[in-house]
């Protein structure tokens, strides 16, 4: 069972799953044996708005660290999401085709995007944030934005 770190600002509560790593954008990487499941954080999905479409790289695609892995179109913005690990896409979440709202409804669960067979996981992980660091980053960011208002 996944544990979460969470904070509330105004009427919004943001959760950070503690069993995975994050890049600066809020794309998470969850190691599962030799594979890595990829998705976006609760913070990123809430800030981006309801997802209308998600276009994810197809199975067999090879990506390098930081390369685009998916594009999501929300009611507010189009976001290019970069891969937190290098490797080969071995599975794509079919729900992205039919019900991309899963990203909003369950960002750490059914809203995952792809599974990648990592090429250099140990190296990539060194460039990612652990949950505590990501949590501190987004909390500070959110607090600063509130102060600006």
């Amino acid at each position, binding site marked *: 069972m996944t544990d979460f770190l969470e904070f509330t600002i105004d009427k919004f509560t943001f959760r950070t799953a503690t069993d995975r790593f994050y890049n600066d954008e809020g794309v998470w990487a969850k190691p599962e044996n030799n594979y890595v499941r990829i998705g976006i954080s609760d913070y990123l999905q809430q800030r981006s708005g*309801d997802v*209308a*479409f998600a276009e994810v790289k197809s199975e067999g695609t090879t990506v390098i660290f930081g390369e685009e892995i998916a594009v999501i*179109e929300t*009611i507010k913005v189009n976001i290019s999401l970069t891969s937190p690990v290098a490797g080969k896409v071995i599975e794509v979440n079919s729900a992205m085709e039919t019900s991309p709202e899963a990203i909003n409804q369950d960002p750490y669960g059914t809203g995952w995007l792809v599974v990648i067979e990592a090429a250099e996981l140990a190296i990539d992980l060194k460039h990612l944030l652990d949950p505590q660091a990501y949590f501190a980053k987004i909390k500070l960011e959110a607090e600063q934005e509130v102060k600006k208002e």
Partner: protein
Amino acid sequence: MTNIDHKEKVVIIPCSGIGKTYGTVSREAAYNVTEDLRPEDTRLVALSKLVLGDEEARSIVEGNPAITIDGCKLACATKMVQCSGGRIARDYAVLDVYRRYKQFKPQGIAELNEGGEQLAQALANEITQLVDELISGKRGEDNG
């Protein structure tokens, strides 16, 4: 299955969200149906009147089948009609409609772009078809 009495009109209640593209799409579609496509069979009710407890608006909603058009997942139009004792024949969410018409990407707020206008038109066409079905008694009012 409930057929509509010939004296009844279908009430259209769009999102009242100002400053939101999808809210604008919902209102454009509603105006299109109630003013141009089926003015004889439909009636527009402003969501804000229901929120303010306007007696006439409430009475209209209570006495006629309603089609709600929500601009976001808060679904204010649908919830307010339900709270007002209305009978919802169909609740539309603009985001779901956009997913069916991906080629019509809406942008703009006070003025929609071409994609937004086309999406509003597509939604208006869907609503018009439903209105016709309701009026002709081919369809019940139970969301089915």
